């Protein structure tokens, strides 16, 4: 049975100490996390700086969008070769506009999908949480086995937690 413990801190420095305490207590990097109501400079809590692969998404999306647009514009013009104004049937520069827009659209959509996926959202089971985190408190949350929970609570309290929540 695993258990989540959340320690709440008033002072960011205490939260950073709590992170250290957890590390020193032998918990693995990925098991604990810090929750804040505002972004902090990376590594401010000594946390593991998250890796992401967001940059792949727009590139992938742009290629998909470009291909789709190329198919749509080229195929329809070839399928219905109606001449207008003496312009060539495959008017590259007219198609360019649509190729461009659809590539960009697809890139944006896939980036948004990428942000959601890479943020590990949607996060259906929110887990242990406190409303006051969006009011300025810093939360340090750890998920661990039942038997180690007390060690974690001790570590969190040792750093000066104003409140401990469990779930």
């Amino acid at each position, binding site marked *: 049975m695993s258990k989540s413990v959340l320690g709440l801190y008033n002072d960011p420095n205490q939260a950073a100490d709590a992170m250290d305490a957890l590390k020193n207590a032998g918990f693995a990097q990925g098991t604990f996390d810090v929750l804040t109501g505002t972004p902090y*400079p*990376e590594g401010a*809590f000594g946390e593991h700086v998250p890796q992401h692969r967001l940059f792949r998404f727009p590139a992938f999306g742009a290629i998909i969008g470009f291909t789709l647009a190329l198919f749509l514009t080229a195929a329809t013009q070839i399928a219905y070769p109606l001449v207008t104004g003496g312009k060539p049937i495959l008017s590259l520069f007219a198609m360019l506009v649509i190729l461009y827009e659809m590539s960009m659209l697809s890139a944006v959509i896939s980036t948004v999908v990428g942000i959601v996926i890479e943020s590990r959202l949607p996060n259906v089971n929110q887990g242990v949480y406190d409303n006051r985190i969006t009011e300025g408190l810093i939360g340090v949350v750890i998920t661990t086995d039942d038997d180690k929970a007390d060690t974690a609570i001790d570590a969190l309290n040792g750093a000066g937690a104003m409140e401990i929540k469990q779930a």
Partner: protein
Amino acid sequence: MASEAVHSGAHSGVHAEAHEEAHHELPARVEPDVTTSELIATTEANATGVRNWMWILGALTLVGIVVAFVKVLIEWSDQDEWGYTAAMVAFLFSAFGGAPLVAIAGTLAKGNWVRPIARFAALCSLVSIICTIWMIPLILNLPMLVVDGARRRSIWFEGPDVSPHIWALVAMITLIISALGLIYAYAIPDFAAMRDHSTGWKQRFGAWLARGWIGTTVQWRTMRMRIGMMGTLYFFTFVFVHFIISTDFAMSLVPGWRDAIFPMYHAISSIQAGLAVTVIGLWAARKYLGLEKYLHLDQFWSIGRLMFAFTLLWGYFFISAFIVFWYGRSGSDQMWIDYLILGPYFWVFILAMLFIWFTPWWWLIWNRVRRSYNGTAIGAGLILLGVFLDRVRLYVAAWTVPEDRIHERFLTEYPSTVYPDVMDIFIMVGALAGSILLILAATRVLPILSIWDVQQFNLLYRPVEYMKTKVSLIGKPD
């Protein structure tokens, strides 16, 4: 594209040089006295090496000037022989004239990263002197507004016949004045530093130009105001000169070429080239004058980003004109495409497009490239080559339109390709050498990085510990 690179090992402590593309260490601050003595020393340092270069450049310049006189003697009346000279002037003005805008814009926007590069960028504006000198034969060779009783299209409409001659000269002289003013406004505290720390004639020179600068609050405030004013003046003159050069020396020579975006296109590619010149200059300064301590990846990365943005802007401005002509396809629209793009300079155009736009686009898009000194410099070199080819395509094509056809509604028969002859090559090399020589000579007097700017940079910059990480604090004074 995005400014965040993936972090790897925030506290690895690996030296920045070794892993440029990875996380780079925050640059260390440099103490003011070290800055002053080291930067003053650059005006003397490496003297023999620099002096040799200056001799070579001087010789090339001289040859260029001599050849130009010969050309004036034997090919004066052939307008189409002067196309490459026109292209050269346009290129030099585009490349070196655009550079100071980096400094001006950065200073006005209160960017801290721009401080170490502002001096070099401002010094580039000296080249307007070379451009003015080389423009004299062009101005005299410009076809009259009225030929055989018919007036050709020009921005001067019913103006006197000599309008382009006069206004081009006025514009160029204003540009030189504002360029010198800009450099001087930037340099007063450095002249004071020369007065206090140099020896010999430089000390006397500095003492004379420092005009009693001791750095009172009032003096600093006045200086900031002067920089703002001279910068604005330079900017407006810069735009005006682009307007004059692009219309009088290119557009109005081709009957039927009516392209409202062209002056702006000219200015945009000029800023693009100016950024490139700045990058190359800084790269050389860093490598050969030993300024690693002052020029960091931050500067290269920021200019790289701007260069990338302007590369895309070039594409945008080009396609804005192109699609209107391509779609409109009236007689003069087709003339523009058939002559200036698909015409005698088609391959020049393809190469220009490749170097000015396509290659830098896919090169500078990588954060890894922009996060390296060499990568950014290579991108800059490509852009300069591209801008040169683009000017060749436009100006040589414009100058080869026969004079008797210049007032037609639009051109229907296109002149054939003109290749540069030996004299053109000597002139072009000479003009370029002269420009570099001028800047190099200026750095023998004024340090290539402005001392007070670098000190200010260090004053407003602090690498600090933020809880468990390291960040930099950038001061934003009013």
